[in-house]
């Protein structure tokens, strides 16, 4: 029953994909009337005018281009022409660095805030004000103070991924069941051991949920940040290809951004399952 449900769902997914590709293909066929013009003039005009091609690339164009990229993902022909693998690696490295820094700050800080009602109340106004700020709003300030565009991008990732982790850690730590704490207290377990043996495992699912939200936001933000800072990365690639008017490459980049985002989310989802305990 379950496997047949999965099979049927898979078939529906494939059918939907086929329908989408079919409609896309039909919509971008060469149907426009071809104007008659002198060969010299035709050379100046694009394919849309001379052969009636649609300005939007069809699925076959995108597929062919994608195959080309996949064959050579790591070529490097200078600053504006690098393989997609290299661009993605830059983006993932930035997200990874900023995200790990955020983990290092958010989780210990969240523990402190969650365990101390005083800190929780004292820091609350700051968190409430800082949290809703769009991470990109920090960009000019980061560029001005850090004076390095690549580090600024990492800072923006750091600042955007810290809040969900911090808030979830605080919530997870503060809402550990009183009875579990009491167990540790009656066993005379010290504060540090209690933090690691009771509070951390009890709050881990909530913390991991925060980390999963954060990685999603970080991946959303890196594209926009790289469009601003430029140089390398998948976000810069999208913007560069837009300037080149290569819609095919833009579509390929969109597809890859989606796939990488999904993979990052799946990794964190797996970690979350590892620390989740049934009650």
């Amino acid at each position, binding site marked *: 029953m379950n496997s047949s449900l999965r099979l049927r769902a898979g078939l529906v997914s494939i059918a939907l994909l086929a329908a989408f590709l079919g409609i896309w293909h039909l919509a971008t066929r060469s149907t426009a009337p071809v104007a008659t013009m002198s060969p010299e003039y035709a050379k100046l005009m694009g394919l849309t005018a001379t052969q009636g091609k649609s300005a939007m690339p069809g699925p076959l164009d995108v597929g062919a281009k994608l195959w080309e990229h996949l064959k050579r993902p790591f070529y490097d022909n200078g600053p504006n022409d690098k393989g997609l693998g290299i661009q993605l690696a830059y983006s993932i490295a930035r997200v990874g660095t900023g995200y790990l820094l955020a983990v290092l700050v958010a989780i210990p800080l969240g523990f402190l805030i969650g365990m101390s009602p005083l800190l929780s109340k004292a820091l609350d106004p700051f968190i409430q004000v800082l949290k809703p700020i769009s991470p990109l709003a920090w960009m000019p300030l980061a560029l001005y103070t850090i004076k390095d565009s690549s580090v600024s991008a990492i800072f923006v990732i750091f600042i955007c991924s810290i809040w969900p982790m911090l808030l979830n850690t605080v919530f997870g730590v503060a809402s550990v*069941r009183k*009875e*579990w704490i*009491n*167990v540790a*207290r*009656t*066993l*005379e*377990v010290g504060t540090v051991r209690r933090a690691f*043996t*009771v509070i951390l*495992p*009890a709050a881990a699912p909530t913390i991991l949920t925060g980390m999963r939200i954060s990685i999603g936001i970080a991946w959303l933000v890196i594209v926009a940040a790289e469009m601003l800072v430029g140089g390398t990365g998948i976000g810069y690639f999208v913007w560069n290809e837009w300037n080149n008017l290569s819609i095919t490459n833009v579509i390929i980049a969109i597809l890859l951004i989606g796939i990488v985002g999904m993979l990052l989310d799946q990794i964190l989802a797996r970690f979350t399952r590892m*620390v989740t*305990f*049934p*009650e």
Partner: protein
Amino acid sequence: MTDKFVSIEGIAKRYPGAGGATTTIFENLWLSMARGEFCCVIGHSGCGKTTVLNILAGLDAPSEGAVIVDGQAISGTSLDRAVIFQSHALLPWRTVLGNVSYAVSSKWRSWDRAKVKAHAQNFIDLVGLTGSEHKRPSELSGGMKQRVGIARALSITPKMMLMDEPFSALDALTRGTLQDEVRRICLETGQTAFMITHDVDEAIYLADKIFLMTNGPGAVLAEVVENPLPRDRGRTDLHRHPLYYALRNHIIDFLVTRSKTFTTEKPDHDPRNVPLVHIGKPGLSIASSGEEQRQTWTPGANPGLTA
């Protein structure tokens, strides 16, 4: 009551109420227990039973007064006093063995893994969970979870056990077997135990002494009832003992009526010398009719009672 292993001396618990007033849950509470004694507290919800237990455990501090255990005033929690929680309070990410080992390694920090494991295993065997060591709490039934709770409490070889309605969430059959287990273990190990319960039969079966508390706020310990039933009593023939109904009716009468009226009826009640009630004279105590019984058992004028 010469041997005061546990002595609660004039404790009070007050909470700040609305508008600067304070709510007194109970005050001037005196209570003592001998070594190896099994005591049950019975009283309605809100009389502060759990607060008394939490104070004994060290999880809560009294607003006034002190608690002395084994000649020493307590301050905070201690590995000498193990708590069995109503909701079993097992750590769900640890196995049965992991939960018991956590307690063992908290008590004996220098022990190596093998020693901790062997010690924990002994207590898992004692509560009859051999073979389930590697299960997680979520895979256990309610009764088995509470067995783990008992094993965890016993594994640290405490001087006394504190139980807050440990069996109230269990079905009647499981509750019965666990009562047997607890009674057997406490008798075998000479454990001093303090238990809160709502179940009169549970108190009669398990307790040597039953503390009756009046309704809160302003609850007082009204009486200490000595259990007249023999020490080798069995759960199945408990109700055949000639003094069983006398004892049971006395407790139920207290809960139904006297717990509300006690403070007004006995204004001269001295909380430091709570009357110790012996249920005696078997001939008078067997209930024939409930109505007669109630008239017979008016406090003070009772031939079967010698306060």
